[in-house]
């Protein structure tokens, strides 16, 4: 279980997150919804350790942790970025195996075997040797998910998973996220799309811009 207690974060004197607390149960899907500028992405980035919060506590399974400090081998949070941030010079397979070999020190063979399983699960097997520029948006997103899952995170975060895709893919993304739930992973989804959020989530958090 991931708990956030009294998280506060401001940029240049503007408070973005004010004393925010929340709880995500294991294996649940939490959606964070709200208009742009409400701090959804900031919250996600703080959980992922990309931004440092000003004050507040993160607690995972009753132990406090600092996402921005988490030592490299204890990466417990995976991120699927809005525009995926795949590595364009690496094949799909290399994108997925790079971090497991370099960070988790898996052997090349072991990392490749794991990656094959993930790619199969995400229907990407036939694209293993392609480069990101050869893939469609939906395929890129699934590569980004495979890349994050290869690090065996406890929690997977998505930043606006529907916004960079064709609207017709919205349901496919929802099915994908619901499908991953069966593997036991906890998921946090930032979205501006309330219908999408309702469809997938066990828990819903609405954030609003803070009025000055």
């Amino acid at each position, binding site marked *: 279980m991931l708990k956030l207690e009294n998280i506060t974060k401001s940029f240049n004197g503007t408070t973005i997150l004010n004393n925010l607390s929340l709880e995500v149960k294991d294996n649940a899907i939490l959606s964070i919804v709200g208009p742009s500028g409400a701090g959804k992405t900031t919250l996600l980035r703080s959980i992922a350790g990309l931004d440092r919060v000003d004050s507040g506590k993160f607690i995972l399974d009753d132990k406090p942790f600092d996402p921005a400090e988490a030592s490299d081998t204890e*990466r417990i949070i995976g991120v699927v970025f809005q525009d995926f*941030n795949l590595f*364009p010079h690496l094949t799909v397979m290399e994108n997925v195996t790079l*971090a497991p070999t*370099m960070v988790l020190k898996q052997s090349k063979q072991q990392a490749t075997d794991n990656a094959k399983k993930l790619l199969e699960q995400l229907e990407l097997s036939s694209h293993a040797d392609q*480069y990101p520029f050869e893939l469609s948006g939906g395929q890129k997103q699934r590569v980004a998910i495979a890349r994050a899952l290869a690090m065996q995170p406890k929690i997977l975060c998505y930043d606006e998973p529907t916004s960079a895709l064709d609207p017709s893919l919205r349901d496919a993304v929802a099915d994908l996220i619901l499908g991953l739930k069966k593997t036991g992973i906890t998921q946090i989804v930032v979205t501006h799309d309330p219908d999408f959020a309702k469809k997938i989530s066990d828990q819903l958090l609405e954030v609003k811009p803070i009025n000055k």
Partner: protein
Amino acid sequence: MLHYISEILPSLLSGTVMTLKVFFWTLVASLPLGILVSLGRNSKFKPLSWILSFYIWVMRGTPLLLQLIFVFYGLPNMPFFHIVFERYDAALFAFILNYTAYFAEIFRGGFGAIGKGQFEGAQVLGLNYWQTIRKIVVPQVVKIVLPSIGNEVINLIKDSSLVYVIGLGDLLRAGNIASSRDVTLLPLVLVGVIYLLLTLVCTWALKYLEKHYSYYR
């Protein structure tokens, strides 16, 4: 005429070897140094960034010819410490310092073209700074900077002729000696042809490299 050419060719070719030695070692040293200097210049540790900016400013702001003269004739005559270089070492030292500065600026542009997303993508996967630079950033930067590097590489072949000023026997010097000794321009025409061949090979090599890196967009 053919007989004359065959007579002077050995000295021109041994000059070519010197030209290639200066070219090769300058390239081998200043490309990686250029990457390090450009990283240092972007460093958050300000004094390092200032020192490197100053270094680049001096190296790009003064003629390479002057730098060569200064390294060979100036450094041994400094008031408190004397640094004496052999001719060849002096040439390499000056060329490496100069070309590192140019390469650093080219790489700085290349690093700037890598989006923040690539760094964040690597960070959330747990890659540390050097792993990110080595595996994610540099391979992409190389593709971006290749055309500009190519320009400098071709410049370097021709710039290497400046070493004549400190009395090093390179290709141009060999041609010059033959030309004034035999009172003919033919050696200098040959020198021009050899430079053209050298730059042609470089152009091909660079084209091949650019093609090699076109496997992704």
